């Protein structure tokens, strides 16, 4: 089992994966739509994974960045003179990063459970603000409807399901590439060090607050990217996008996919979205079933789907080495 046999596998997996992803638009429209939401969710969940899986910070407030960016896109496209997709994306991401740099300073003053509760509280405050004081802008429960698909310039339209899917796929590729670079970098190595033993990292001379703060803002930006895409994809944004349930879903999908595994968010999003689509067509009790799946994964597949696959290929690899 030399280095070569280990190298070709990820290359093959990525090539096959990319080919499948690019070929999706030959499927019926509902499948393209499903695939689009999978890709958007996988960006969102990877934002949670960066924070929780790598930096060890469990946040119950990821939805506030997803939702905030979605609202920025919704409000600007439907009710302002600014309609340029790139400008709106920039404003949305900028808003999310400002928001997270403010919340991060406060939330990161505390640790573990307290951090989780503080992020939860921030998220809830933002939800309340969108629901009530800003009701004249957000339309409260009713939400903002009729968000048009973005125009990309160069006479590229994303009105068709396939073209929008390709836009999402391109953005996701950039995001995943960035996350991959990050976790392989010295910065990423330090994040995992902080997750595993923050006390020692401080003694080694790391300003652990700075690392956690930067990763919090990056994670928020990633959640913002996904929320922004979602607003255009769904054409409709309501306060559920800011709600803590959606923050909890990020953690749940992350657990299903595999915490701290690079491909975990994508695998989790595939299973979560696929099952929800399939099961919802039979019963309205999807939430309950989602909970049961989550419990089963946590009890029997601690590494999630990613961990299960790694185990399986490891066994296969060992079996081959023996024969």
């Amino acid at each position: 089992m030399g280095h070569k046999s280990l190298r070709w596998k990820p290359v093959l997996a990525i090539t096959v994966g990319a080919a499948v992803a690019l070929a999706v638009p030959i499927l019926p429209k509902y499948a393209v739509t499903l695939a689009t939401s999978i890709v958007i969710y996988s960006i969102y969940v990877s934002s949670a994974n960066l924070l929780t899986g790598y930096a060890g910070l469990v946040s119950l407030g990821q939805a506030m960045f997803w939702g905030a960016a979605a609202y920025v896109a919704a409000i600007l496209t439907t009710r302002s003179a600014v309609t340029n997709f790139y400008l709106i994306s920039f404003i949305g991401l900028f808003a999310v990063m400002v928001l997270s740099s403010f919340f991060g300073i406060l939330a990161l003053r505390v640790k573990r459970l307290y951090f989780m509760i503080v992020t939860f509280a921030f998220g809830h405050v933002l939800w309340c603000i969108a629901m009530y004081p800003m009701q004249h802008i957000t339309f409260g429960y009713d939400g903002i409807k009729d968000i048009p698909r973005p125009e990309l310039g160069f006479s590229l339209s994303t009105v068709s399901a396939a073209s929008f899917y390709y836009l999402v796929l391109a953005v996701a590729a950039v995001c995943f590439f960035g996350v991959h670079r990050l976790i392989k970098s010295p910065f990423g190595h330090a994040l995992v060090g902080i997750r595993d033993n923050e006390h020692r990292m401080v003694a080694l001379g790391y300003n652990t607050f700075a690392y956690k703060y930067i990763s919090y803002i990056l994670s928020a930006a990633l959640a913002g990217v996904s929320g922004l895409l979602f607003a255009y994809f769904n054409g409709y944004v309501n306060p559920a996008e800011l709600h803590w349930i959606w923050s909890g879903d990020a953690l749940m999908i992350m657990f299903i996919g595999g915490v701290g595994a690079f491909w975990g968010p994508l695998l989790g999003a595939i299973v979560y979205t696929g099952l929800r689509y399939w099961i919802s067509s039979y019963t309205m009790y999807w939430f309950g079933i989602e909970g049961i799946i989550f419990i089963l994964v946590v009890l029997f597949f601690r590494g999630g789907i990613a961990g299960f696959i790694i185990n399986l290929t490891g066994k296969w690899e060992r079996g081959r080495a023996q024969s």
Partner: protein
Amino acid sequence: MEELKVENLSKNFGGVTVLRNISFSVTSEERRIVIIGPNGAGKTTLFNLVSGELPSSGGSIHLFGRDITKMPCYRRTRLGLARTFQVSDLFPHFTLMENVLLALQAHDSCSYQMLRSRRAYAHLYEKAKDLLKELRLYEKRDDPIASLSHGETRLTEIILGIAAGPRILLLDEPTSGLTSSEGVWLAELIRHLLKDITILMIEHDMNIAFDFADRMIVLHQGEIVADGRPEEIRANPKIREIYLGTVYG
């Protein structure tokens, strides 16, 4: 030159005073200072205050002439102060090599680099290799920390302490859990390897302590009861009574 100066340092945990009016200074003339004292004397707490892991309740600490009393731990490390822990405190999910790289990277210009793979920083690998070879752990570089023996984790603990190239190193019982012959070997290795840095070492094994020290500080119930050359400490009847008496019977 005064490298480290501790003045009237105290520490209370609630109503319990763990350290009371500790004052001593370390110059570059004395390289090997051993801190002894019975269990509960406050030795590790003293290290925690000097390294910055715990805030002091009173008094001041100067490092190379700078007041570091309120300085956070990681910045003290940048000034050239490092420490090791009594109970090995490593990164269990990383290999030995990755542990060492993490320690080396802390003070390198690449420590915030996000987009380049850490494999691109060959100078860190070279340094890590040298350190591991020097401590005869190079063969184990790709082993997970969990698979190392107790003695090897003690060595790794020291590597993490010296990786950043400190000028003062606080060694909290480096020989804890080792057999006495291993302990003697390790103390010899530290003496040989770290000739040019000032070492403050907490040590329970009296043979190693007396053999290693240029100077000894004796802590008892949170106070310094003696501070002097090993011969003086050995001859001090008060020390025999409170500390050595219990060891030598």
